[in-house]
């Protein structure tokens, strides 16, 4: 049971405030519990009086943020401010007297009347519009990143392009021990569909045919694409999944996660990065850290952003890099702007450490890498095809994107 909902800016200003009970005088803060999440740089706060399940409220806030994103196109202070009437209407439909009614965008589209107001079309200067895939805009064959950040409703009236985006997103968690042995490698992946098709009745997503779940189910002789666990959105029909690895679904407008999967320990391909650290003390009592970093990706595939965090005079082997000592966090940050596959970079950091002892050598580390690899999936999962039926009238576009993020890529020293 929800008493109030607030959407606050990052500074704490009220953007939206909705009170479901309007009994302000009766409140004392003692009986009011606040729950909040943070998404899109905004705070989403709900208050509740009766001890209801905190899960329900957190889930509600997360869904609300997703819905607002679907309806307004993007999540930002500006888009929320411009669409207060729409969001207010949404809040009114979703929650009645503190009880959540429905959050399905299929149901809601029957009720929501207000049109979304979108901010200016994509411009390079508007940073809020640069999505995860920002750099791809330079290539002509690829949709601008802003294409997926528009409200779902506009496609109904304004004759917006009917498009469908399928993203395969994977996050890697890797721990490499100090002896260079891989201790833990996890990949969490999901297939996310964002649909702007007003009349898409069925969609078929074909995965790699050699895709297999669990250890026992290996097929064929080739390099199988294997995951440990797999879960699907409830709208997905799996009748063709066992035989042909085809997911069938009727996507509702907006964004939804169609499939989630997980793979632990047994990665099919080599790790994208290896680090060879050497740490020594020189005669002047300085700590010398020699880092050799190798990118094992196929050539031409290069990570977009790359930050290597090491816990400093610097000598770097290429001009495209920079490094910085962050005294508060006691870390060295080594940034590499461009890092081509199959190459190797090295850096030597010399640190002046007062009263350096052999014990303090033990306190160095671990190294954390953070990066984003477009067009690559760590599990090897690929979308074989994407078919829509009935065949869409007029021009429709289908986009498939792959990206792998580092969730936590740690190399112990």
């Amino acid at each position, binding site marked *: 049971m929800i008493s109030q909902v607030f959407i606050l800016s990052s500074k704490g200003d*009220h*953007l*939206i*405030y*909705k009170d479901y009970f*309007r009994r302000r005088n009766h409140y004392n803060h*003692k*009986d009011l*519990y606040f*729950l909040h*999440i943070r998404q899109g740089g905004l705070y989403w706060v709900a208050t*509740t*009086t*009766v*001890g*209801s*399940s*905190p*899960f*329900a409220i*957190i*889930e*509600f806030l*997360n869904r609300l943020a997703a819905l607002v994103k679907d309806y307004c196109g993007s999540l930002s202070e500006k888009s929320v401010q411009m669409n*207060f*009437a729409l969001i*207010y*209407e949404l809040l*009114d439909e979703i929650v*009645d*007297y503190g*009880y959540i*009614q*429905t*959050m*399905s965008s299929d149901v809601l589209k029957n*009720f929501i*009347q*207000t049109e979304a107001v979108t901010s200016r079309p994509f411009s390079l200067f508007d940073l809020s519009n640069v999505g995860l895939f920002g750099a791809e805009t330079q290539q002509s064959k690829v949709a601008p990143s802003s294409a997926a950040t528009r409200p779902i409703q506009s496609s109904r009236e304004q004759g917006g392009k009917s498009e469908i985006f399928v993203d395969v997103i994977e996050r890697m*968690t890797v*721990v490499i021990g100090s002896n260079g042995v891989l201790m*833990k490698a996890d990949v969490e992946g999901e297939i996310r569909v964002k649909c702007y098709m007003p009349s898409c009745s069925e969609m078929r997503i074909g995965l790699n045919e050699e895709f297999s779940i669990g250890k026992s189910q290996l097929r064929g002789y080739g390099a199988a694409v294997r995951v440990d666990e797999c*879960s699907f959105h*409830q709208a997905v029909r799996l009748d063709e999944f066992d035989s042909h690895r085809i997911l069938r679904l009727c996507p509702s407008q907006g964004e939804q996660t169609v499939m*989630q999967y*997980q793979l*632990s320990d047994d990665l099919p391909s080599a790790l994208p990065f290896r680090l060879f650290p050497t740490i020594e003390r020189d005669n002047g009592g300085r700590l010398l850290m020699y880092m050799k970093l190798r990118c094992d990706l196929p050539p031409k595939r290069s990570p977009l952003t790359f930050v290597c965090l090491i*816990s400093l005079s610097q000598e770097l082997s290429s001009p495209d890099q920079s490094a910085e000592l962050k005294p508060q*966090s*006691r870390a060295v940050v080594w940034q590499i702007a461009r890092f081509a596959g199959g190459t190797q970079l090295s850096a030597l950091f010399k640190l002046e450490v007062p009263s350096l002892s052999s*014990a303090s050598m*033990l*306190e160095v*580390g*671990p190294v*954390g890498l953070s990066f984003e690899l477009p067009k690559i999936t760590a599990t090897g999962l690929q979308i074989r095809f994407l078919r829509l039926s009935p065949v869409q009238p007029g021009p429709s576009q289908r986009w498939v994107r792959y990206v792998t993020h580092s*969730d*936590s890529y*740690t190399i*112990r020293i």
Partner: protein
Amino acid sequence: MPSVLRNEDLKEMLESSKESLKLEAMKRIVGLIAKGKSASELFPAVVKNVASKNIELKKLVYVYLVRYAEEQQDLALLSISTFQRALKDPNQFIRASALRVLSSIRVPIIVPIMMLAIKEAAADLSPYVRKTSAHAIQKLYSLDPDQKEQLIEVIEKLLKDKSTLVAGSVVMAFEEVCPDRIDLIHKNYRKLCNLLVDVEEWGQVVIISMLTRYARTQFTSPWMEVRFDENKAFYDSDSEEKKDQTEAKPYVMDPDHRLLLRNTKPLLQSRNTAVVMAVAQLYWHLAPKHEVSIVTKSLVRLLRSHREVQYIVLQNIATMSIQRKGMFEPFIKSFYVRSTDATHIKTLKLEILTNLANEANISTILREFQTYVKSQDKAFAAATIQAIGRCATNISEVTDTCLNGLVLLLSNRDEAVVAESIVVIKKLLQTQPTQHGDIIKHMAKLFDNVTVPMARASILWLMGEYCEKVPKIAPDVLRKMAKTFTAEEDIVKLQTVNLAAKLYLTNSKQTKLLTQYILNLGKYDQNYDIRDRTRFIRQLIVPNEKSGALSKYARRILLAPKPAPVLESAFKDRDRYQLGTLSHSLNLKATGYQELPDWPAVAPDQSVRNVEIVEPQRIKADLFWVSNVHCPCVCTESGSESEEESSEDSEKTSSDSGKSSSGSEKSSSESESDQKKKKKTKKAQQKKNKPAADRYAEIPAVSGFGSFLPKLEFITIMISFFYDFFFFCQHCLFPQNDSKNPTFRTSGISLFHMSFQVTTSSFGPLKTYELLHHMTGKGLSAKYHFPRQPCLYQPSMVAVQLFFSQTKQISHPKCVSGSDNKKRLEPGASVTVSMGIDFSDSTQAANFQLCTKEDQFSVSIQPAVGELLMPSTMTEQDFCKEQGELLCDSNSVSRNETRCLTHRMFLLSCRFGGRTVSSRALVLLSLELSESSGALLTINTEKSVMASMLLRDLKQALAQA
């Protein structure tokens, strides 16, 4: 005053005649509300627009009204009549939204109106409206609690509702208004369990938590065996008697208890984290111990969700992992800390890892901990050291290893790490009384460098406690402390006084003067605790004439052996609270927290949950019969052997079903008479059929038929256009522009009419609908289709054919309703059954149950509006005449123009005459091609709801064609 000026501006906009201006004004007003600013003085101007035709504007006015009605009660009353009118609107969404807004207007005067509206809406045909009425119950209750009794009646009625849409909402109302009236649930318990999977997710959360409570009051504990074992140990003397009792009654789970567990299990796959957690807590509180681990995997899966969700899930896992280590042990890797986790999540993971540690996995866990200690996140590193301490006390094998590791940490460069290690070592040493000397010496060396007060105090305490083991060092430490006493923190001063006292008792020669000096310093300290302590110690240890009695025991008091502290989890007593609740997360009793009742010792009467065998149900008795289902077995085709057999079987069983029927007398007699009727009609139909078929055989001989054939094709195409709605189009659709051959037209009609039985089956629609999926039906799947033939049993019924097929294991489908025909379906076999349903000319779904030997499946058949029509033959003149008559009654006409016709429709201009199946009301439909590309579709009937639905569907079908 700019704000007032602006409001004037808004008022003007609202009073203008332009919709767009009004809309803009309303948007700005809602903007004011959304920002929490007052817009109440605009009330009169806004409320005028409540009856606006523009839906967007109307909705914004509703938003405003709900917000301010309480402040402006008199003016708000002006809008009430608009809502009362809207409550009677044929459109269900308008009815529902009117009720929603009406019930949100918190004006006490309208309570009776609200009550009436809720009662009416609770009996509405549309489940959506009924759902809204369930929501309105809580609103009315909070406005006027005196209405409770009446509202409970409505709740009771709505609880019986079979719609999944309503179930969640009415349980919410139940929980709000009368959570103690558990008796209302009994009869609906099984239904709720069965519906649960299909209820929308937020409703599932509420229903599950309600059912958890229900189960704890109605069933006996499945953990009984364990309890009795405990009892045996405790009460050895009288255990024999008890033993007899327990052995006489071994625990058998109530089938309803099992039903709940079974039906909630699939929900663990839900996308909604709240549902997953609700099921997890249900299993935790209700399932037998060995079944609880089913939920583990799903909970671990939630760890991949948002940060906030992770936090709460980890809290719950922490509580669970204390009681059942085994549940989470296989997933221990999932709780390893990742570098990107937030501190509060890291500490929770540590907590869980510590709970899960045992002899087998401790070495891996400790290795993991080693790297955590290095973390730059100091709070986390400190928590890790605490965790190491806990592992060391819990698992005696590793105590030494841990202690050594901690001692190594004492030379760490980070003071927080050192301080935390000292505190933990202090606790560990108390449990390990053997090897103190070296460690304490090491600590004394460190003492000068340690500045964290807690750590300093810990070292001092250790010195005092084990001063006999370090006789040389301890006095020296005291000397140092005497120097810096005044500059120390309070906690350090207290321990200094303690150390002084203990040394005075053991080694008074060296420390007498030092002690007196410190006691003097303490006497004049600013802190009263320290002054107090000093006074007490002085009286205790320094002998003087006043305090002789106690000081004799000073040594025994101060140097008594102290019990080692037990390092416990912070989550140890969290299981007081129900898992997944706010109280559990906060670890304090939240307002409104309902404690989970304990199992009853003896199960209450189980039979209260029995429901009478489903009779033909009346949802709204005065209006219509929802489903009057008859199900004699008539197999239309005899393809496989099993079908033939089954049809024979069923004939036998149906003939004696009157005797064996277990229902009430009334229903059995009804079914008997029905059967007789059926037989009669069946025979009659057969008689009729024969000549019809004969005549059909003659048709090719009719002259001119050949020239009709192309038209026939055209008609077939038409059928595919109308495939969802009309089954008899071919009878009455006659091309109007065919003026060359008027005689042929009429003969064509009559011809078709004669050959009715045969032609329909050849044109019969192929579209089948799924009644029961083989997954939900546990291997049994059922499909249905509308053969579009007159029903054999009663002319007012719509014929429906059901196809059953068995895919996996054997089960025995039989239809409970009217008659009992038992069939046995072999795997792979299928059987066809026809039945008739009286839909009373409404598209309301007919709900009934499909029973097999083990299971019951609630299924429903919902007809498209076209299935409710029968064609009727009439001449063109009659058609026009009837149309004219219906036109006079303005209510019965629905006209609409459709523009979206495609080129394929160019030759089409046609009429259709028919009657509704149940009430024989005339439905006339004509489609006229106009000069421009559009066409005019007119439906004339007295059934206005039907007309609008028909119109909508036809428009859609024509647009698609």
